[in-house]
C-alpha cells in the first residue's frame, strides 16, 4: 500500500453477516463517513471466528483487528456470539503476553440497525490504533513474504 504509506494503517475487521455487516451497510446507506483503513472480512456469525484468525492477522502485519457481532441474545443462530464472547475475551486478555498491545484488538456488538454506532466504532477504533502506531510485528518479524499457498506455487504480489 505504498501510495497511502503513513496515512493508513492496516485494520482488519471480522464481521458477522446478520448484524454487524448489515450495520456497516446501514452506515454506508446513511453516508456516515469513516476512516478508510478498515478492511472487512464477512463471516456468517461471530461464532465462526476462530481466535487464531485474529492471532494470525496480528502476527502477519495487521495493526489492528476489530471483531463485531450481534448483540448478546440477538444472534441469528441463537448462541454464536455467546461462544464468541468467551473466546474473544480470553484472547483479548492473552494477547499482551506476546507483545500485542491490548488496544490493537477489540470486539463489540453492533446490530444491523446501528449504522451510526458502527461509524462511531470504526472512528474510535481507527483513532485508537493510530494512537498506537504501526504494530511492532512487522519490525520484529519483518514484512511478510510470499507464502506459497496450499494450491502450490507462489502467488503474484500486488
Amino acid at each position, binding site marked *: 500500500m505504498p501510495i497511502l504509506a503513513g496515512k493508513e494503517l492496516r485494520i482488519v475487521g471480522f464481521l458477522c453477516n446478520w448484524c454487524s455487516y448489515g450495520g456497516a451497510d446501514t452506515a454506508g446507506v446513511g453516508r456516515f463517513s469513516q476512516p478508510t483503513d478498515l478492511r472487512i472480512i464477512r463471516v456468517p456469525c461471530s461464532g465462526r471466528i*476462530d*481466535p*487464531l484468525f485474529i*492471532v*494470525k492477522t496480528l*502476527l*502477519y502485519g495487521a495493526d489492528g483487528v476489530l471483531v463485531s457481532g450481534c448483540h*448478546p*441474545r440477538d444472534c441469528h443462530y441463537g*448462541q454464536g456470539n*455467546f*461462544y464468541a*464472547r*468467551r*473466546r474473544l*475475551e*480470553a*484472547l483479548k*486478555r*492473552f494477547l*499482551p*503476553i*506476546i*507483545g*500485542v*498491545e491490548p488496544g490493537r484488538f*477489540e470486539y*463489540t*456488538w453492533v446490530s444491523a440497525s446501528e449504522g451510526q*454506532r458502527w461509524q*462511531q*466504532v470504526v472512528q*474510535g*477504533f481507527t483513532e485508537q490504533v493510530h494512537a498506537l502506531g504501526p504494530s*511492532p*510485528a512487522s*519490525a*520484529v*518479524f*519483518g514484512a*511478510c*513474504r510470499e*507464502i*506459497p*499457498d*496450499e494450491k502450490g506455487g507462489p502467488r503474484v504480489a500486488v
Partner: protein
Amino acid sequence: MSPFETLKEKIREALPGLDCVIGWRQGFDPLHATPFFMRAPEDVEKLVWSPLCVHNLSTYLPSFRGKKVGIVLKGCDSRGVIELLQEKLVERENLVLFGLPCSGVADLTKLGRAAGDLDRVSAVAWDEAGFTLATPRGEVRVARRDALADKCLSCQFPNALEADHLPGDPLPPATGPDLGDEELAALEAMAPADLMARWAAEMSRCIRCYACRNACPMCVCRDHCIAQSRDPHWLSQEDSPREKLMFQLIHTMHLAGRCVECGECQRACPVDIPILALRRKMNRVVRELFDYQAGLDSQAVPPLFTFQVEEANIKERKW
C-alpha cells in the same frame, strides 16, 4: 510394605486383565527414567519410582483407546487423565489408575546447570533436602528448591485426583514460590515491542521438531495436526520465527481451558524455549474469567465449549 511395594503388588494383581500397565523404568543413564509398558508380571520388578520419573504418561493413553490398560500417575499426570476422560478420548472402564503421592520431580536442566555436564554424571542420590550428583569434579549437592521443576515447588495437586489404587498417605500441597507467576510478571513488565522481539528471538532457536506437541497429553490430533496439513493450511514450511511462534499460539489456543499445566511441552523442548509461559498465561486468563481449571473434574465442560447468557466476569466495553 512401602507404598511403592504395595502399588507393585496391585499392578501384579491387575496385569492379567490388562493390555499393559504404563510406568517408568531406569533409562540409559543414572539421571533418566523412561516410560515403560509392563505386560508380564515379571516386568513389574523393573518399575521404578523416583523424582526422575518426570514424564506425564497420560500422553500415551489415547493410543490405547478401546483397550484395557493401567497407568501409574503422579498428581499432575492424573489431571491429564481426567481431561482425556472429559473429552471422551479414553474410557474410564478401560483404565486402572495407580496413583502415587509425589513430592516433586527433578528438572534436569537445573541439575545440568549445577553439574556442568549432565552426560558426565555417574550417579545421583536424593533425600528430603536435595540431590547429590557424582561428577568427575566430585560430588555436587543441589538443594531441593534449586533442583525441582518449577511446577513442583508450588504444586497444589501432589496426589492423583482420580485413582483406583492410591497407597501411602496423601501429601499436602507444596508451599514453595510460584516461579511461573514471577516469570509472567517479568514478561508482562516489558514494553510490548521488546516482548514481541524477545519471543522472536526465543522462537528463532526452534527447530520445528514438535517435541512440545508430542509430549502434550492434550494434543489429541496426532497425525492430523494443522501445523502440517494443507487443508486447512495454517502454517507454511517457512523457517521463520513468525511461523514458529504462530505454531505455539495455535497450540496455546487449542489448549485454552484444557491445559493441565503439566509442563511437558517445555520439558520436552530440546532447545529450552520457555513456551510454558504462554500456556500458563492462558490458564490464568481462563481461571480469572471462568473460575475454571482443567483436569479437576471429568464431568465438567471446558469453558470455551459452553457459555452463560450473562457472563459474570465479562463486562461489555464502551465503544
